[in-house]
């Protein structure tokens, strides 16, 4: 099966029929739920305290529904209008923004306690048209995300790197923006189940992990 990133830009790939197929597939729902819960585990937020989260590449809100179930308030951003429309139909609790992560995160400094992203940030490495510079887009993304987080706020992103070079450019841009942290690989021995999680902290936190 071809990777979706190789076929078309996300807003084209996830057109109405694709986003409907994607969202209603129980296999996709199960995997997305599992990865969202794992991302939350890696965020390791204080229990019994409210948190305001950002979900980057929120799609139709499969991850957001889990954030709501876990008691978090959130805002989601996605580039696909069809995915967001599916999210509206599903009555998700968070606010939905139509936007391109490569153009940055448009929130003022210190807005969010933490951020997650499930299966999205590898799209930033694409150059769909000649005048698109993935390096610049990654930097804009990480710089603005850094600023939108509270100091010490964490960002956990599950993603599907196409190769080691992509992983390095993502990690490199995150470091330049000021994030600390690195990569966690779950099930590294299994080709099928291997999962990559970026675990980053914006500045220093008083709270050790």
């Amino acid at each position, binding site marked *: 099966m071809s990777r979706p990133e190789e076929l078309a830009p996300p807003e084209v790939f996830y057109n109405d029929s694709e986003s409907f197929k994607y969202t209603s597939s129980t296999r996709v729902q199960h995997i997305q739920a599992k990865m969202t819960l794992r991302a939350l585990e890696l965020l390791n937020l204080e229990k019994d305290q*409210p948190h305001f989260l950002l979900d980057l590449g929120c799609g139709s809100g499969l991850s957001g529904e889990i954030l709501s179930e876990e008691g978090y308030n959130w*805002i989601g951003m996605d580039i696909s209008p069809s995915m967001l429309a599916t999210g509206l139909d599903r009555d998700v609790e968070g606010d*939905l*923004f*139509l*936007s391109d992560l490569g153009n*940055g995160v448009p929130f*003022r400094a210190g807005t969010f306690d933490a951020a997650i992203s499930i299966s999205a940030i590898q799209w930033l490495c694409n150059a769909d048209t000649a005048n698109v510079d993935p390096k610049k887009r990654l930097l804009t993304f990480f710089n603005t995300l850094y600023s939108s987080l509270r100091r010490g706020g964490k960002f956990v992103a599950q993603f599907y790197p196409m190769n080691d070079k992509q992983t390095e450019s993502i990690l490199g841009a995150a470091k330049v923006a000021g994030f600390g942290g690195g990569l966690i690989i779950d099930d590294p021995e299994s080709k099928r189940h291997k999962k990559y999680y970026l675990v980053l902290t914006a500045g220093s936190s008083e709270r050790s992990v």
Partner: protein
Amino acid sequence: MKFITTNFVKCAIKGCQSSTEAFPLKYEDCQLAQEEQEYNPEFIAHMLERLNWPAIIQVAKDLGNESLPPTKPESLDPIMEDDQAVLRDLHTLLLETQIVEGRMICRNCEHVYHIKNSIPNFLLPPHLC
């Protein structure tokens, strides 16, 4: 889009990153709806510290509400009876008031962002990226 979000969203255009005029956005021709949300006073109390009250007042005015107190209610405690009514009011304003349709305009570069079906559109034309 919930009212609370207006207190955090700013212009996405690069040249506006360091402008103090890029927040809050100016709201025009907005259609509002009240939508019931689960009451979570702990969340309101948690967010209070990071709310920019002058921006709350300004956006409320854009939307036709000029009855907000001039200063931010401070250190509300969900356990205190006296604080309950204020937390309830904040809940109604911040979380239950939704902007369904309308325009947000940057006071610095005058770029217009449209809200349709409660979803703000922050996609930028290539020359502004």
